């Protein structure tokens, strides 16, 4: 399909949103979130690979919002905390404060291999540890970086949609 544009033509694609199939089994006890999950994301020392994929997970193709998951700008509004990267010394404090600022009940998602076990940064001089060393982690999304499809699948286990 083409349309006229400034005297020429440009291709206009059909909608490209992926069909992601049925959801995995929900995480235990997420009924209290009532199928609506607000997410605060903290980059605790990531290389930004996970950030790009997280952005893609919320972009039109994978569109996590259709499953009741939304990014918010303050931990005060958040149900779940998504942490990417190994926890560096400089970000350990702000991460703890962010978690402290969240209302209960709250969930923590470790996004990517670095968040899970420090990945390639393990043993680095600036690294304090993995996310599970700092916070109680409820859900891990492996991958370096994880595919947006996997990110959406993990978040759907929180929203149960």
């Amino acid at each position, binding site marked *: 399909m083409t349309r006229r544009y400034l005297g020429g033509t440009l291709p206009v694609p059909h909608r490209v949103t992926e069909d992601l199939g049925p959801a995995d089994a929900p995480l235990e006890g997420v009924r209290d979130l009532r199928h609506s999950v607000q997410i605060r994301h*903290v980059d605790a020392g990531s290389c930004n690979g996970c950030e790009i994929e997280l952005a893609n997970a919320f972009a039109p193709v994978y569109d996590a919002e259709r499953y009741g998951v939304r990014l918010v700008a*303050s*931990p*005060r509004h958040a149900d779940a905390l998504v942490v990417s990267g190994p926890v560096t010394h400089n970000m350990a*404090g*702000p*991460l703890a*404060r*962010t978690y*402290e*600022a969240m209302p*209960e009940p709250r969930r923590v998602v470790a996004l990517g291999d670095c968040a899970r076990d420090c990945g390639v940064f393990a043993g680095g001089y600036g690294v304090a540890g993995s996310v599970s060393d700092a916070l109680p982690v409820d859900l891990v999304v492996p991958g370096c970086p994880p595919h947006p499809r996997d990110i959406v699948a993990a978040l759907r286990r929180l929203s149960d949609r």
Partner: protein
Amino acid sequence: MSWLVASLVVGVVAVLAGATLGRARVPAVVALLWVEAALAAGAAGRVLASGHPLVGATTALIPFGGAVIDLTALGALVVLVTVVVTLAATLYWLGYAHHSMSSRSATSATALFVGAMLAVPAAGSTATFLLAWELMALGSLVLVAHDHARSPSARAAALWYAASTQGGAAAILLALVLLGAHAPSSTFAALSVAATHLSGATRALVFLLALAGFASKAGAVPLHVWLPRAHAEAPGPASALMSGAMVNLGIYGVALVGLRLLGGGPAWWWLVVVALGVVSALYGALYAATTTDLKRLLAYSTSDNMGLVLIALGLAGLAHAHHHPALAALALVSALTLLVNHALFKGLLFLTAGSVVDATGTRDLDRLGGLARATPVTAALFLVGAGAVMALPPLNGFIGEWLLFQSLAHAASAAPALVVAAVVAGVAALALTGGLSVVAFVKAAGIGLLGRARSPEAGAAREVSRPMRLGPGLLAALCVVVGVVPGVVLPTIERAGAGVVPGATPLRGGVGLTLAHLNGAIDPVLIASALAVALAIAVALVRGRAPRASRAAEPWGSGRLIQTPRMQYSATAFAEPLGRVFDDVLRPESDLEVTPARESRYYVERVRYATRADDVVERVAYRPLRAALTWWGERARALANGSVHRYLAYGLVTLVVVLVVLA
């Protein structure tokens, strides 16, 4: 009579005791002042009860006609108000004097100040009145200059005050002398008779001179410039006495000269008074809303409230000139009610502000905060005063403003076009100042008392001593009582007003207030009960809901590690939008100074921003005047070069000129 004389004698003893006694001088003087106040209150009570003025004279004591006492019902009311404020302020002083204001000069000056304030309304002749008036100025001046050794701003305030009060006294002296030029004696009774024979122009000149002198004492704009400085610099008890009691005497003076001595006069005089009141109310409220200095805020609010009193007084004069006795009486009662209420809540506010300054060492709202927790009693008392000044029921400020609204509303239906214009201006001013004073006091209470301490000094604040809570506590209790049961003071106020303007007030007292023949009624008890019930329901609704689990966490600052209390909402920020709206009036001066880093001008090392909104009347009118006076003084130096021959020549020339003129 004997009670009043005894009161004055005790006053003299108190002044001497303050100047001579050792360490026990403050308690001794306070005890003497209480006796003095009680005696004066007794005399005033008898005048109000009987309705007959207290008159007496002696040829001794004062030159030019001797000392004359003539305490009318209006004067008696002013004496009673002064007595109440004095009781609270001196009680407070007992605690305050442990740190400050306990020197011989300050103790003696306080006694002098109080004694003179009790004597001014009792004075019955020009010489007596001016003597008392000047002693009052002297006593308060010493108190304003109390911190002169430490604070340059106190020295400046004292100079401003001295110049203003002397200018005002000169105007009053001129007015009374003009009035008495052809009178057989200078007693007020003789003056009021002589006034009927004066030409209209002379009478107008007398009135305008007296108005200028007295309005400056009451803090009316544009003669108010001394007031925010002096009331802010005076120590706590002194500023409460000045703002609670002394400004009333300015209003008393206008009523004395305008209504009693000159017997009313044409309508335009009173239009001038209303205009002065409107300008003062708006200007005072605007500056109170934008300033960040707690005591300056209170002082500007005094200008605002005295403006409302002047509106009511002007309306009384207008109604009198247009022969509406009922309206004149109602307006006068509303003026006096506003005056009494202002004395109670402004005395309370200045005393609690004194406690705040005492506990924290600062008057800057941007450096206060957290006092509701640190000094709960003082904070609660301040809140009562703030509620009263905002005219919230069930506090006393509401009653006065309701009466003023009623007088204005009824004046609109009963008077010619010119008066209606004044009424419209009065209503508009009342509405706008009401809003502005809410802004001012929400700022004072919200920034000053709530939140976290914005400076280490405020963080170290501790509750003040017991006398310093009892003094303002007395006034706070009166604010509530008068607000709920205005019947306790209104009959007295009516009686005081009845002596000035003939005519029965349409007020019907008791528990509720009803205006006979006029459409207006109010029941403060009912309002108070309704508020109490509404509050109880609200509390029950909140308590009745299922409790939610909660957890204390620090305020969210985007993960920032260093969060300081200075990042809270500040008084400057609170007033900023209003300052922007009234930019053309306030004309703030702001100053932005950017220092670039040495390596590159694109990087900033330091930014300094300062903004100040000095009093615009002071900037526009008084600075050029001061510059001109300084210039004149510098020029006049050339006349005095130290040569004795020259000085003798001056003396000779002066003598010759005087002889030629007199011959």
